[in-house]
């Protein structure tokens, strides 16, 4: 959907044709749902948060000024809702977020792997698990950057952070993740040069 089409649909909804809102839901449900799923790590919560985000967006549609992308505006609602849910959950004694140590028992332990060299698939799994252990505010910015491809400015709009803060938070998120991966096992083998050529070569070529 082009931005112009999007604007037209928004005008139609604002003009009273609420059913047209479904066009926007269909266009962005995947991004919204995945953002919520990544933040909440629970399908039912992600569904609830996504629906709440769209519903709030519909109610607040008049306030959408169009100076940012609609998706970014929507992500911001989603993100805020998820953070609220996480905050509420963290006040509960059995909250998953404060349960990182206990939760670990459910996860396969890479250190138990007798082979030190991880296949790419295993690297990905390790990264996914590492992401899960990041604090939500760090996971959020990193995923908005890497998965949704948002710019620093756009992430700032989603999170309400200054672009400079976004920048440093993404950096810190990467460092934390690297630290988690290192601490958890043998992600960074003692022969980094080999590892670089094998895994990072393609990206290093950008340099």
């Amino acid at each position: 959907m082009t931005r112009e089409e999007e604007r037209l649909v928004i005008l139609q909804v604002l003009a009273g044709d609420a059913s047209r809102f479904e066009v926007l839901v269909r266009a962005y449900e995947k991004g919204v749902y995945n953002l919520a799923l990544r933040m909440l790590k629970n399908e039912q919560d992600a569904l609830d948060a996504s629906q709440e985000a769209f519903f709030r967006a519909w109610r607040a549609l008049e306030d959408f000024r169009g100076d940012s992308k609609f998706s970014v505006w929507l992500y911001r609602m989603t993100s805020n809702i998820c953070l609220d849910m996480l905050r509420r959950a963290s006040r509960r004694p059995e909250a998953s977020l404060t349960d990182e140590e206990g939760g670990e028992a459910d996860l396969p332990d890479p250190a138990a792997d007798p082979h030190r060299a991880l296949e790419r698939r295993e690297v990905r799994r390790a990264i996914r698990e590492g992401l899960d252990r990041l604090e939500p505010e760090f996971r959020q910015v990193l995923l908005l950057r890497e998965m949704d491809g948002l710019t620093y400015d756009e992430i700032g709009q989603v999170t309400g952070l200054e672009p400079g803060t976004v920048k440093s938070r993404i950096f810190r998120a990467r460092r934390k993740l690297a630290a988690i991966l290192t601490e958890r096992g043998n992600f960074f083998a003692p022969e980094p040069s080999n590892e670089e050529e094998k895994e990072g070569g393609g990206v290093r070529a950008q340099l």
Partner: protein
Amino acid sequence: MRKKRKGAACVPSCEYYQALMSRLLDGDLTAEEQAAAQEHIRSCPDCARVWDAFCQMGEAIRGEAMVEPPPALARGVMDRVAAHSRPAPAPIPVQSHRLRSWKKLAAAACFVVLVAAGAVTGVFGRDARTTGGGNTASYLPEAKSETAYVHLPEDAGGSAETVRTADPADSAPGAGSALSGAADSAPLENNSAAAPQMAPEAEGTEEEAVEAPEEGIMAIMEPPQAAADSVPLALPVQGADGSDAGLIADTAALRALLTGEALDGPLPEPDYTLSLDGETCFFAGDGDGGLLWWRGGDTAPTRSPASLADLEALFLD
């Protein structure tokens, strides 16, 4: 914008370079900074490892496929939106999102009413429009007295109706085939029930009709805000194949059909569908001239005391 530390007397720390590396991945570095980061990665094994980790986590995250959202997501949102939509101020709200194109149809049909009325009174002829389109308001009373030209096919299969405009030259070729065509018929019926509902809509659409005639019907398909905000002039009816089967203005008569004896059997395929008071109503012939109807969510039809022909007689002709 960028706060750099590279002018400092001390050698930048590895942390500084790692911050550059993070921004390098995000395309946020100047050429100068990029060269500095690159040089440092080459010369510092620790930072080379960190760079490698940064790259790999980016690849891994981007490699994660997004999950398809469950169908319940959109359905739940739209149910809530429908439940909270402000009720239309008129007797016949069309709110079901399943029938979302109908509002537009109603606006378009309203335009057709105007054009058709104009043809009868001679106002909307091409010449009149290009020379003095500003006076159409004075003809509105006559527009109210006419009805839309909706042709329902003889077979009750519910294929698309043809709504005919006054002057084929006024319709863009090929634009909106269901709505363009030659005017070869006179108004067939004067349905008094339609008139009061049409009036406000007609006023809202009048300017559009005058201002943009050369764009044909397609220009009208997106109603102006006023038209979208107001109420459909008559109930649009969908045929079996989802086509627009016509309009019903006499909702009192329509409601009178919605009685009868509840049946047990499964729901047949509907011949007609419409939205009444925010609920979807389905109609089907029983194969013997009788009329079955049910509402969205029903599991069995009701046999109306009326016949299929009674229903079809309500279509604006």
